[in-house]
């Protein structure tokens, strides 16, 4: 047996926090975001040969988002798009179903939208096309989500990888359809003209309105409805759900139909209102970004507006930074986002735990005890 080397107490030890005030919690998040942005701004300056002042990154970012009216509307629309997709993910995540397949679900919605526009265009009135493509895109998104859900419900098939693979299958289908529709080999489709969704006010507002409605809907769905209650019980404990007579399989499948349908709807907007075309990269990875956004929002639809705004702000802003700083490509945006994610994810440690450092003086434990016993549950 080896000797024990030190008899000294460790420098600190970790304990779980009981409660934390909202203010402190917000403070920790804000601190993390600020720290993340500061670090990335320094990194950008180091990596750039053109600029030397980290603050210039912020002015670039602001000009990228608020610089012109058009930029600002694009920012709002893209926030709304991301919000719509993140909202679709919320119920699934709340049920602890890892839907990593939003990319594919949105893409399928977009694909069938374009298919409708192409094949029905000119043959029936636009209103008819719109009606058909709305239904079709919602169904396509739902179908793409419900397939993994059925297998998860009946055989406990790993949904994380299943939904992920469905993304690549959807992408493959899109590439295939493009080769069918554009056999020339150009690999891209020209914008469709028939069956475009109507412009409300300007070209951006429709997406924003749809997402706003979805936000209100999702808020009430999750917090007040019986469906929302059921899915949170399933997420909390499947055993408990079964025990109180909830049909877990039904809830899983129903929730993923909703999740996929909403993704399909966002695909409709991307295809029918924004781009009028489809490509394998058209979703721009928002399915993944949406996962981060809904996680950071802790499943609250209203907070989600903020997290989506933040993420879109950073990506849009970084697009401008890239130009101003003379970066070769837009990959820098992902680097910055990734680092800020790390900070936000990591800061949760300080919300759940706190460190107690080795102390010289005796702590007054009676004081702690008295303060925590106030307004506390019983004791053990």
């Amino acid at each position, binding site marked *: *047996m*080896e*000797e*024990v080397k*030190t*008899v*000294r*107490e*460790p420098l600190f*030890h970790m*304990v*779980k*926090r*009981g*409660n934390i005030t909202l203010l402190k919690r917000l403070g920790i998040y804000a601190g993390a975001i600020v720290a993340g942005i500061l670090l990335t701004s320094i990194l950008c300056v180091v990596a750039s040969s053109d600029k030397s002042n980290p603050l210039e990154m912020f002015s670039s970012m602001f000009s990228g988002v608020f610089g012109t009216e058009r930029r600002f509307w694009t920012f709002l629309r893209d926030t709304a798009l991301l919000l719509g997709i993140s909202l679709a993910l919320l119920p699934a995540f709340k049920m602890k179903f890892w839907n990593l397949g939003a990319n594919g679900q949105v893409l399928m919605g977009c694909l069938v939208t374009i298919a409708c526009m192409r094949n029905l265009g000119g043959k029936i009135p636009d209103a008819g096309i719109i009606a058909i493509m709305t239904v079709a895109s919602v169904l396509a998104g739902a179908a793409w989500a419900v397939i993994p859900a059925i297998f998860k419900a009946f055989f406990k098939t790993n949904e994380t990888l299943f939904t992920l693979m469905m993304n690549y299958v959807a992408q493959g289908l899109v590439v295939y359809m493009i080769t069918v529709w554009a056999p020339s080999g150009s690999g891209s489709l020209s914008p469709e003209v028939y069956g475009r969704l109507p412009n409300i006010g300007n070209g951006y507002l429709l997406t924003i309105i749809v997402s706003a409605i979805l936000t209100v809907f999702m808020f*009430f769905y999750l917090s*007040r*409805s*019986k*469906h929302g*209650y*059921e899915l*949170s*019980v399933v997420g*909390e*404990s499947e*055993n*408990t759900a*079964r*025990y*109180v*007579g909830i*049909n877990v399989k039904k809830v899983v499948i129903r929730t993923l139909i909703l999740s996929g349908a909403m993704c399909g709807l966002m695909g409709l907007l991307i295809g029918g209102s924004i781009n009028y075309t489809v490509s394998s990269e058209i979703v721009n990875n928002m399915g993944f970004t949406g996962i981060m956004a809904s996680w950071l929002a802790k499943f609250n639809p209203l907070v989600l507006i903020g997290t989506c705004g933040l993420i879109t702000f950073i990506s849009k802003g970084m697009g401008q930074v890239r130009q101003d700083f003379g970066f070769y490509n837009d990959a820098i945006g992902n680097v910055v986002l990734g680092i800020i994610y790390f900070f936000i994810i990591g800061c949760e440690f300080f919300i759940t735990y*706190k460190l*107690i450092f080795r102390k010289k003086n*005796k*702590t007054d*434990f009676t004081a*702690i*005890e008295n303060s*925590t*016993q106030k*307004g*506390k*549950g*019983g*004791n*053990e």
Partner: protein
Amino acid sequence: MERQVALELKNICKYFPGKVMANKNVNLTLYKGEILSLLGENGSGKTTLMNTISGIYAPDEGQIFIDGKEVVIKSPKDAYLYKIGMIHQHFKLVDIFSAAENIILGVKEKGSLKNVNTRVREIAERYGFDIDPKKKIYEMSVSEKQTVEIIKVLYRGADILILDEPTAVLTPQETEKLFAVLRKMKEDGKSIIIITHKLNEVLAISDRVSILRKGEYVGTVDTAKTNQKDLTEMMVGKKVELKIDRPKTEFDRPLLEIRNLCINSDDGNVAIDDASFYIRGGEILGVAGIAGCGQKELCEAIAGLRPIKSGLIMHKGENIIGLPPRTIIEKGVSMSFIPEDRLGMGLAPSFSITDNMMLKTYGEGKGPFVDRKSARERANALIKRLEIVTPSSETPVRKLSGGNVQKVLVGREIEAGPNVIITAYPVRGLDINSSYVIYDILNEQKKKGTGVLFIGEDLDVMLALCDKIMVLCHGKVMGIVHAEKTTKEQLGLMMTGSLDLTEEKKDKNLGFAKDSNLTEEEWKSEEERQEKEATDGRS
């Protein structure tokens, strides 16, 4: 002669954020070659204290001395270096490993598994254990697992052994065997701390008793100079009447009748084997058995959560097999199962009390929305009636203490006005006063004419509370006895299968009620119908 001190604790404090102090200025002395009982109610900080010695928790204050030298135990590894070994209540074993693999886990020494096997056999022979080093943990019974745990600690040469509630999962006979082993170890010069809240065991095994109450050190007494009554007073802090009521009631007709029930467990083994019994309104039927003898599967089958293989379950003369769980709940059959982690089933830990109140009733009422307002009212009423300690009805149950969590669960079940209550381990982990609240609730229901199936761990409690006790062994019914006419020893023998009362009275099945809700012809036809459905279902 001055006795040598093996271990000494001075002013140990451990504080859990959000809870009160688990240990407050605790002092403890353990002499070499003695067995010290650490006595206290559930939640009095016994396990926390022992975990600080074995390096699981870091104490916030205080000093630990071993052989007179001050030490700091930062991790379980340190504890082993100081030759301290702890046998945890929830065994720390890797299920898919063999006994030998578990034993050598973390031991820094060279040599092959063969040597391990010989050394394990040596230890086993010396103390009279029975063990197969190659057997996988998941194939073992609870007492075998405990044996592995003890050998694991001895293998590492521990001189100070800590056993946390080792008898909780053992039959009276197995307990005796364990005590014999402990006495042998004591003769070998080992120092032993045994955590327990069972007074008779304290008196039977230990040299001295140290008592904790609500995290505080109360005192230490010589076992020879004390008795159950004094110990109880030290443990609970005031005089308590240690008597569980068994109110006399009029037994009604059978509410729940079960005949020839067979159930499979998750891995396809037989969990319940041809069980027949019935519960009358106004009676409490206890179910005794060692852990994993089919209690869980039985509960789940009655509640409609687990398909059965064959047999009949009749509720008020109506077959409830195959009905969805929700329908069975609506018929007034309530099931609450407190698993080992105490939160796993029946409650949603991060939900508020209000939201937990709605768990079984949220679907009532028209419209797509849940009625949180009436649930809140019910929650507040329950908090008031059962004196649940909580800041508000919107506090997540996860933040409540064990006793209050169980009050919420049992209270919710009672509130629905069931006519059959199936409750498994409702007092698991509760202190004496909270336990008595639960017993009172059950007795109150019994007086109202509800039939209660009580699955318990503590035979003393069951003997006092239940009217009849059914004993299970490997899923087989060993007999159904009147609580007043049986003894703990008899129950223990039945639990291990050494005594089978059904063998003696083979001709008449005691599990069949004489005044059944159905005539024998009706039972027959139900049975045939069930069989037909089963074959139809298969084809």
